[in-house]
């Protein structure tokens, strides 16, 4: 019996012989007078990772809150399993800083009513996977930022959830820990969980099975990273710095990237095959300036997806 099935304990059997899919469909949320989400769809398929990527204030957390049931949508559908089968890591620490690593896991196990044997076995596995086995008795507050996020993720995985929702798991975490965290998240999907994670780091999104690019509460693009890449319209080129080239452009290292909606790049720019990061920026630019002519004649000071960060 798989770990997930072992922990499912009476959950409804998925229909059609395959895992039930969860997610958001055409969800609209208003917060006060602000439209936080406008017809956003976020698929969450068992065994795969969906990443919601966007800058600060794009609506990522709102998406995840609706998915977990923390927030009710004004319209649209949120499909999720029963609470017993959801694992959630908020953007905050997501653990008790005055409990030890073991005690944090113990609390989670009790909250999800894991049996003693299940708890011990799963806790050992989680500690091995997170690399926290050597600090079991250390207080959560005394762990490094990366270790805290790993512990929080481990706590959310302890009961082998069908749906893992994880809000900005790697923000403020060092590069090595980020790799380890994504390995944990990918491992959860490999075990069969539907994973929905949010991030501001574009490069991290490219590792997902599906990506939803959010900007100001709207999904600018959605699909596999390849599909998003194939959806890049016009032409992307590179131009040497420091002078900013004409037309919509953004910094990539010492050079500029230039996007031309009509395919005609400036003279000083040479064409390049866009990568995923380019595709995300182009999608944001296209959405901000539906008329390519206006984008070309009056480029934004920086891309609308300016908050979305490159991997550091």
């Amino acid at each position, binding site marked *: 019996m798989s770990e997930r099935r072992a922990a499912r304990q009476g959950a*409804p059997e998925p229909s059609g012989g395959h895992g039930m899919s969860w997610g958001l469909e055409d969800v609209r949320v208003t917060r006060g007078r602000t439209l936080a989400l406008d017809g956003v769809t976020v698929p969450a398929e068992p065994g795969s990772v969906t990443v919601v990527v966007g800058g600060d204030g794009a609506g990522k957390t709102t998406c995840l809150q609706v998915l977990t*049931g923390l927030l009710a*949508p004004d319209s649209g559908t949120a499909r999720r*399993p*029963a*609470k017993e*089968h959801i694992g959630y890591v908020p*953007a905050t*620490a997501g653990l008790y800083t005055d409990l030890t690593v073991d005690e944090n896991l113990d609390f989670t196990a009790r*909250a999800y009513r894991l049996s003693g044997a299940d708890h011990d076995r799963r806790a050992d596995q989680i500690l091995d996977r997170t690399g926290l086995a050597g600090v079991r008795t250390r207080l959560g507050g005394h762990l490094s930022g990366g270790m805290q996020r790993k512990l929080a993720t481990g706590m959310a995985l302890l009961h082998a959830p069908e749906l893992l929702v994880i809000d900005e798991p790697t923000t403020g975490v060092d590069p090595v820990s980020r790799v380890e965290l994504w390995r944990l998240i990918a491992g959860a999907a490999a075990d069969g969980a539907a994973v929905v994670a949010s991030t501001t780091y574009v490069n991290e999104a490219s590792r997902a099975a599906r990506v939803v690019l959010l900007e100001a509460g709207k999904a600018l693009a959605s699909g596999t990273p390849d599909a998003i890449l194939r959806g890049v319209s016009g032409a992307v080129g590179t131009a040497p710095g420091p002078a900013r080239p004409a037309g919509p452009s953004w910094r990539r290292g010492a050079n500029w990237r230039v996007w031309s909606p009509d395919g005609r790049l400036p003279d000083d720019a040479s064409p390049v095959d866009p990568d995923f990061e380019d595709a995300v920026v182009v999608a944001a630019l296209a959405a901000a300036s539906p008329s390519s002519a206006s984008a070309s004649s009056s480029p934004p000071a920086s891309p609308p997806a300016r908050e979305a960060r490159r991997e550091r």
Partner: protein
Amino acid sequence: MWAMVAKEFRELRRDRRTVAMMIVLPVLLLVVFGYAANFKVSDIPVVAVGPGASQAASLLRAPTFQVTETDAAGTEATARARLRDGQDVVAVVTGGSRPLVLMDGTQLFSVQTAEAALGRLARPPGVAAPRVRVLYNPDLTTSWVMVPGIAGMILVFIGTLITSLGVVRERQSGTLEQLAVMPLRAWDVIAGKIAPYLLLAAVDMVFIIAIGMGVFHVPFTGNVGVFAVGAALFLLVTTGMGVLISTVSQNQGQAIQLAFMTLLPQVLLSGLIFPVSAMAAGVRWISYLLPLTYFIEISRGVMLKSAPVSALWEPIGLLAVLAVVVLGLAIVRFRRDLAPSVRASGERPRTPEGASA
């Protein structure tokens, strides 16, 4: 420096609760406590019993005394029962060679005022000077009266402040959000959250009473069970207030502010220091909304006067009502924190959920 001043004012302008505490609260406290802070007692309730009850009653004049009942058939036992049950503070027993005046020693200021007034009383010719006997606290020892009340005050502090801080800490650290997603009922979370504080407060209560008895020689003459019931209800109210405060506080600083706003009136208006009966009617009603007022009545009644449950049903009942109201409000508000979806949609989530709107 001016940059700092301007920044502070800008921050203060947005921190309305602190501004209210700094400007409105002192004015409010001064007015309320000005009327409440009164050691001069009047209208001391007196019962006169025995064949000379009417004559005795006619001597005890307002504003110091207020004769509540004249019972010619009454005996000393009747008078003692009324004092024990808190119906009167002074009882005049006539019929013997000298009138006997019984006083409730748990009412320090009333007894001091009554003794002084009796000394000034002009007796008609042929009437012997009364014998005065102070019951329950013959030496009018202040600590005997204060310790049962201070025990309550300490428990208000622990129950309200510590509980509110504990719950707000969950919100600040983001773990409240996690709890909301976990398969826990709101009641499980609240009960699990306040049970340890209730237990600790109960242990504290035992320690405080034991120290009061051991160090200050405060007697415990009544029924422990009655005291325990009153204390349990009181602790439920104070921890409920803690949860309630936590639901309207975004951080621990706000929780501390609000907890002190509830603590201060309880210290000054509950009868711990100033007699409730001496307070102006305009502020006395506030006393009747405070749980400490009733706990003090119960603790002094049980510890010093051996008051039975029949004599304390009123404060016990009112504490029970307060417990239901405060805990009920706390649970309703806490549920909203834990299950915002339910609040927003007015529906319980389905399992597995297809929450569509």
